[in-house]
């Protein structure tokens, strides 16, 4: 048997993080890219692989743990986060990752998501959002746009989708970010940032399901469209997009697209991920199509705040009262025992 040390050391390459299982996603699925970026980032985090746990629910995306040569638990539909909360409570030293889908964590698992955000366990949630139920062959999901025709909505869906970033903010999330399968560089940064964040990281990743919802994020990946549709956020930097031709300013609370040149970059909204109200406005870009307001979709870290983690306060509370020598016999005896002769 290898020693712990050996095992960890040999693992510190992306290959070392790959399990020996065949990857079963459809050819062309966006999940491959996300897997690759995670496998690439892992060795850079300085965490031995035995300290990593990947937990998922059910869905195409939730197959993820099988492909990681770490600890993994493929749970039941919607419950990954709840399982993760138990892992983290018992072993705060583990690096806990939750991989989930838009159905898994926003439909059936929505409650666990909002409660985890509120409690702020130090876990990293990576939500593969393909705006569809992949595994069950193409029903609409809580992120599918209104009117979408799917297997279960042949005449178009009736629902307003969730705006996942808004929901996460509304649920007291401390780290809200968005990436996309087709921007691997940014995605790797966001994965690393999720890991760094102490608290529940909510990283939504747009992921193309090329079988049931191909092209859902076309506007954000297509060479001709993406400049106008994507804005990449960087803390302390102005909101600029359109290949450097456009900026965003705040007119009161209303974000407006302005031509750069007329305005200097410094005149634009400077991204401050600590500002929750600004984060809400960024999240609300989602509600307007480019066609309506010219507002692009923000990628990067929308919001990040510091708040004690749940498991840390739990540990602190226990430590205040813990007694290595706590006497089981005294406990069993209680305060009011007596002898029968």
């Amino acid at each position, binding site marked *: *048997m*290898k020693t*712990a040390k*050996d*095992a960890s050391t040999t693992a510190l390459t992306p290959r070392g993080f790959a399990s020996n*299982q065949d990857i079963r996603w459809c050819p062309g699925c966006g999940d491959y890219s996300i897997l690759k970026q995670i496998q690439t980032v892992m060795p850079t985090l300085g965490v*031995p*692989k*035995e*300290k990593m*746990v*990947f*937990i998922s629910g*059910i869905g195409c995306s939730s197959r993820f*743990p*099988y492909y*990681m*040569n770490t*600890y*993994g*638990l*493929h*749970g*039941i539909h919607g*419950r990954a986060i*709840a*399982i*993760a*909360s*138990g*892992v*983290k*409570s*018992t*072993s705060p*030293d*583990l690096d806990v990752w939750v991989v989930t889908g838009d159905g898994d964590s926003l439909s059936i698992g929505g*409650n*666990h998501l909002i409660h985890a955000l509120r409690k702020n366990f130090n876990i990293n949630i990576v939500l593969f959002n393909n705006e569809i139920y992949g595994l069950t062959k193409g029903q609409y999901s809580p992120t599918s746009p209104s009117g979408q025709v799917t297997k279960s909505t042949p005449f178009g869906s009736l629902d307003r989708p969730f705006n996942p970033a808004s929901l996460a903010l509304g649920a007291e999330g401390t780290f809200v970010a968005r990436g996309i399968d087709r921007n691997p560089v940014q995605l790797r940064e966001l994965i690393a940032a999720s890991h760094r964040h102490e608290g529940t990281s909510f990283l939504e990743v747009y992921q193309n399901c090329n079988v049931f919802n191909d092209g859902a994020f076309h506007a954000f990946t297509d060479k001709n469209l993406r400049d106008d549709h994507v804005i990449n956020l960087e803390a302390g930097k102005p909101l600029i997009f359109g290949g450097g031709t456009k900026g965003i300013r705040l007119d009161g609370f209303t974000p407006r697209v302005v031509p750069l040149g007329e305005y200097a970059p410094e005149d634009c909204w400077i991204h401050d991920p600590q500002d929750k109200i600004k984060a809400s406005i960024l999240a609300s870009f989602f509600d307007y199509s480019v066609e309506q307001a010219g507002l692009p979709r923000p990628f990067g870290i929308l919001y990040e705040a510091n708040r004690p983690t749940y498991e840390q306060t*739990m540990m602190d*509370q*226990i430590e*205040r*009262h*813990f*007694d290595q020598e*706590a006497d*089981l*016999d005294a*406990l*069993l*005896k*209680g*305060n*009011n*025992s*007596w*002898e*029968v*002769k």
Partner: protein
Amino acid sequence: MEQSVKDTEDVVILFAGDSGDGIQLTGGQFTDTIALFGSDVSTFPNYPADIRAPVGTTSGVSGFQLKFGSAEVFTPGDQYDVLVVMNAAALRVNLPNLKKGGIIIANSDGFDSRNLRLAQYIGEENPLQDRSLDGYEVHAIEVTKLTREALKDSGLGMKAIDRCKNMFVLGFVYWMFSQDLANTIRFINHKFQYAPEVRDANLKALNKGHHYGDTMETFTSRFDVKSAQLPAGAYRNINGNQAMALGLVAAAKRNDLELFYASYPITPASDILHELSRHKRFGVKTFQAEDEIAAICAAIGSSFAGGLAVTGSSGPGIALKGEALGLAVMLELPVVIINVQRGGPSTGLPTKTEQADLLQAAYGRNGEAPLPILAASSPRDCFDTVYEAARIAVEYMTPVMVLSDGYIANGAEPWKFPTSAELHPFQSNAGSEITNVEGVFMPYARDDRQVRPWVKAGTPGKEHRIGGLEKELVTGNVSYDPENHERMVAIREGKVAGIAKDVPAQIIHRGEAEAKVCVLSWGSTFGAIETAIRDLLQQGVSVAHVHLRYLYPFPANLKQLLSGFETILIPEMNRGQLAMMIRHQFLIDARSISKVQGLPFTVEEIKKVIQNELSK
């Protein structure tokens, strides 16, 4: 019939308070109502030591004692089962005569610092808060405040309002004893016919007290403490939920495990959470989850990380855990699931007892997902049962269901507590090397009891993935292979079935193997049946008692043991759930004796059933 073998359904109550508290009237009303209901009642006056003693002092305490449910009259030596006290002094004076584990109903507004001082509580320590009443069932109610609130629009002055407190308490006591208000309503209507405001105020207070029990989900069935001769040893009082909590702490501490209890509050299981949340000294982690599903899932996660993971609830909450229970079966991870049963179906009777979740425990999830089921028979037995459940969970890598019910969960009895040294440590295979096949870790390799290894996430060199899809023999990889599935189903079944050989052989608790009638039982019916059979045996009746702790799998010798009896009767507070399991497994004509009233069997009921059977 020997004196000591008395009918245990009788209850002794003391109402106590200041002379101004209307104690005599309260007691009198309660007596009348009980008598109307057809029970035998005897009362015993208990006047203040000093009729002119100042309000709130011990010497000013007035009392009304009554005993009902048996033909025996009240004797001064009788200890109280229930103590109703309106202030601190009343408690102080009467506590010594309360049975171990008895019920205290206290007006907590009568325990302010003045009262405490007058009652001479040292340092004005409030006994309702300092845990000195541990082991009693305490209902602390702000009677003064609630009565004032209820009557604030009554038109009465504060003094007159406060005089209605006794009716509030009486209403609450009626709720606890499932008594009708009608008699007292008649009485009030008559007594205050010329003072409609006073009449209405009293009626309202009475009603509000009664509703309070309902609104608070106050548990209404009370545990009967059998006044048997106790063997020598050190004792304490304990109720079932406390015993459950201590059993868990003990299992963790004794086996160097960290206890993780994840739960969502529900009557009558919440007290386990409350109790455990106080034991941070022992490193116990409690987690109030957002719902029952999250609770069991968190427990599964904890177990994956090496925690002694436990979740507890009552029927409706257990129903919600079914899917995740199946996952635990598939993952073969140790998790203890506690069901403190209450009256069903659905929300049912949250404050009444029942044992109708046995079949849910056995079959309440999809697919073939067998798991061991154990049931506690009395408050103190909750300790041993849950300790044993934890042992089986850890040693066999399986979720284990523990059934208790509201009757024993809330009821207390003397417990000859063990020393920690007497607790057997678990024989887990964790750390054994059964699982390395040519140097590669195999999460589904098994030892000779078919048990896979428990490897704490975080252990170097043993990284592995598990999940709810069917898994391949040995490797644990996902497998859709038909034969593999059939083998895995058989392995999971066989592993659990094998536990039958690892538990004590079933004994006959009382009576002989040649008896004409065998009474087979499980759970909280133990006490009443034991008492009934003890009585009947003394009368020479040919009867025996077999009581099961292990409901799945049954002890290996059970079939043989039962087949010796001509007649098997199975009294259950359900419609025959154990009876069904016995019938289909052993094909014997065991007969169900069913009572589904949210109430425990009485000794008399059991006796009658047996006698009827024998006189056929």
